[in-house]
């Protein structure tokens, strides 16, 4: 530090020297954690809109039996004139823009990949992580600001490759890769089914997204271990920082395994290896083991930062420290550790031995224990607190409720006997959407409404935020709750069509989508109102902290928005002031 003292002196003057947002170089070459965080958030919103529109096409297709949008197979004659999304070719015939049933599967596959890799992860880790980890531990920036820039800019590249993958030939059935986000062999290796360049581009895209995440993970690890302000011991770190710390360790340990697995897919496809090819002595089930060794930690990567966000919010709006702080921190650590030894609960149907199955059932159920600790601690934090139902708190309580529901169906699926029946049905789809598109997404919105005034220095309309919450809450429940019924009735996932018996709840589910879409419009109107129409600045009195005495973490000691370079004088964290 000593050598930097002189540099400090003249940097003070620049402390609040903020380059113009209209200068593209500010963003392209940015090494500022707050600017990079902002870019991640905007990127996630764009990817979320695209992924959300794709799920709209899925629900549209499934609204009633028969093929609505993906009617490309019926293309033989010229019956495309009165069909949806029909386009006239130069020779006068009509084609379906979105192709055939394979197009449907491409839509499902890419929806999943985009939401996971380009929406939830960038928002939680890249966005909130970059913005608030340095602020919360009292650091001036991330440890490696330039590497941070690379982490971000690799993402649009990966996203572009994924988009191109949808447009180039995928194989005999049409454009794109339609084998599901899990990329199971042999669907993903078969030259007959996916011989085109589409799958290769997708592999490349995931490699690049993975490198981006690994670089980010290293950056967070070094930042959290080496750049905490004096007095900010590990056991005084806010729970959001803990959640990011556990998450990035999971990334570091699991992503290389995915990278290895998809590299083997690539060589099986192009260089004649037989890792997953039964004809050459390989085993496609080995791909599943490798994938899920990554995949299960990945689902916790998606939700752990949400746990952290919700902990901060529940504490702030109950005006109490989090109940059982250490228990909360170590619950996340143990979820992370156990998360590595439960992967085969996604593979009960491959036919393992009874004993192995029994092990995976037991290990999976054990994860419910630290998860339960978290849920009870949030409730205990609220218990007897003076609860302020501001918009972020609404989302956080919504999160607790919906995530718990998804956790319960997870425990149901953990039983291998039950899962043999429910595997690959809509019951599983309902489960992971309760934990993801409601759990993770509600946590993201909670964090967004919590920190938006801090990031921008502006006020939003609580009325619009609340309206957004309630419409969303009703909408997503109407989409996904009926899918439990469909799954229990035996409706399989990843088909564009279904028998008439499943029509009723599918129709209800699609109506839920329409309601949710209205909620999303309210969200964008809220942003428009906040940043353009009214642009109300936070009053001076509440400039540092609009949430009052409950907001105790370090970011609330700074102005809103925080100075471009903060903590030139490192804050000292005292015993009673932490989390």
């Amino acid at each position, binding site marked *: *530090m000593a050598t*930097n003292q002189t*540099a*400090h002196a003249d*940097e003070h003057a620049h402390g609040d020297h903020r380059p113009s947002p209209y200068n593209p170089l500010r963003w392209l070459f940015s*090494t500022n954690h707050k600017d990079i965080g902002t870019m991640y958030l905007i990127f996630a919103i764009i990817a979320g809109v695209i992924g959300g529109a794709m799920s709209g096409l899925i629900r549209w297709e499934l609204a009633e039996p028969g093929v609505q949008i993906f009617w490309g197979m019926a293309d033989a004659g010229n019956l495309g004139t009165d069909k949806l999304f029909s386009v006239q070719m130069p020779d006068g015939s009509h084609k379906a823009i979105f192709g055939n049933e394979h197009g449907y599967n491409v839509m499902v596959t890419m929806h999943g990949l985009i939401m996971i890799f380009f929406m939830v992860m960038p928002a939680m880790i890249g966005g909130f992580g970059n913005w608030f980890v340095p602020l919360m531990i009292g650091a*001036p*920036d991330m*440890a*490696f*600001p330039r590497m941070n820039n690379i982490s971000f800019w690799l993402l649009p590249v990966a996203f572009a490759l994924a988009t191109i993958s949808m447009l180039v030939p995928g194989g005999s059935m049409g454009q794109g890769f339609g084998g599901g986000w899990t990329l199971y062999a042999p669907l993903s290796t078969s030259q007959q089914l996916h011989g085109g360049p589409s799958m290769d581009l997708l592999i490349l895209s995931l490699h690049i997204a993975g490198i981006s995440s*690994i670089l980010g*993970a*290293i950056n967070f*690890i*070094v930042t959290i*271990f*080496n*750049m905490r302000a004096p007095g900010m011991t590990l056991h005084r770190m806010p729970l959001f920082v803990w959640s990011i710390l556990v998450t990035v360790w999971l990334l*570091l*340990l*699991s*992503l*290389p*395994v995915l*990278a*290895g*697995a998809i*590299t*083997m897919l690539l060589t099986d496809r192009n260089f*004649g290896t037989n*890792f997953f090819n*039964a*004809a*050459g*002595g*390989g*085993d496609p*089930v*080995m791909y599943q*083991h*490798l994938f899920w060794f990554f995949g299960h930690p990945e689902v916790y990567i998606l939700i752990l930062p949400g746990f952290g966000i919700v902990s901060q919010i529940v504490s702030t709006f109950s005006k109490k420290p989090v109940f059982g702080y250490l228990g909360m921190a170590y619950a996340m650590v143990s979820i992370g550790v156990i998360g590595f030894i439960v992967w085969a609960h996604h593979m009960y149907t*491959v*036919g*393992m*031995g*009874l*004993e192995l199955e029994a092990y995976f059932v037991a290990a999976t159920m054990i994860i419910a224990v630290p998860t339960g600790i978290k849920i009870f601690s949030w409730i205990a934090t609220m218990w007897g607190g003076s609860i302020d139902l501001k918009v972020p708190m609404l989302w956080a309580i919504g999160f607790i409720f919906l995530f718990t529901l998804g956790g319960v169906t997870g425990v149901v699926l953990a039983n291998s006997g039950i899962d043999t029946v429910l595997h690959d049905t809509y019951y599983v789809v309902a489960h992971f959407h309760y934990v993801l598109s409601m759990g993770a997404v509600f946590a993201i919105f909670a964090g967004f409404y919590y920190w938006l005034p801090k990031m921008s220095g502006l006020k939003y309309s609580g009325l619009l935020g609340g309206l957004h919450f309630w419409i969303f809450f009703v909408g997503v429940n109407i989409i996904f709750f009926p899918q439990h019924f469909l799954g229990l009735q035996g409706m399989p996932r990843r088909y564009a069509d279904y028998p008439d018996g499943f029509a009723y709840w599918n129709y209800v589910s699609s109506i839920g989508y329409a309601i949710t879409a209205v909620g999303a419009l309210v969200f964008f109107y809220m942003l428009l109102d906040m940043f353009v129409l009214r642009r109300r600045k936070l009053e001076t009195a509440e400039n540092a902290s609009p949430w009052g005495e409950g907001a105790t973490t370090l970011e609330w000691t700074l102005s809103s928005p925080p100075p471009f*370079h903060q*903590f*030139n004088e490192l804050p000292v964290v005292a015993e009673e002031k932490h989390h």
Partner: protein
Amino acid sequence: MAMSPNTPQNIRWVAICVAIVGGMLAIALNAAPLYDAFCKVTGFGGTTQTATKAPGVVLDQTIEIRFDVNVPPGTPLEFKTGQTSETLKIGETGLAHFTVRNLSDRPVKAIASYNVTPHTTGLYFQKLQCFCFEDMVFQPGQTLDLPVIYFIDPDIVKNRDTRDVHTITLSYTYYQQADG
């Protein structure tokens, strides 16, 4: 930026992280040999075993072995089994016949792959002689008789997973190889 990123503590953590990433990647890329070894030892995924001599012990209990043969669509081979099933005593040596005929007018190079279901019985399905995982070339029109000599290891009745199994299916698939 208040601090230079390249402090020794920072570099140390970066080195640790890079080592972890490299290590995990290496394990993943070597999954194939590791997994093969694991399957051979445990019979995981219905990997059958090879033995050099019959067990000597024959139990009174019988077990039915069913035979399934198939080729992927478009393979110019006819693959048949001489018997759809065979019932024998546990520990007794059985002999099954398979025939393969090349339907095309060109030599066909192919390789057989197999497993048993329930997968858990893989550990106890012992082969004394078989045709498997070796390239074979079938001349145009040629028919080959391929025998498999096997027995069921009497230990099958000692395992909780397998003691109630009364039927085992042995399934063979013939895959044409690219260069033939």
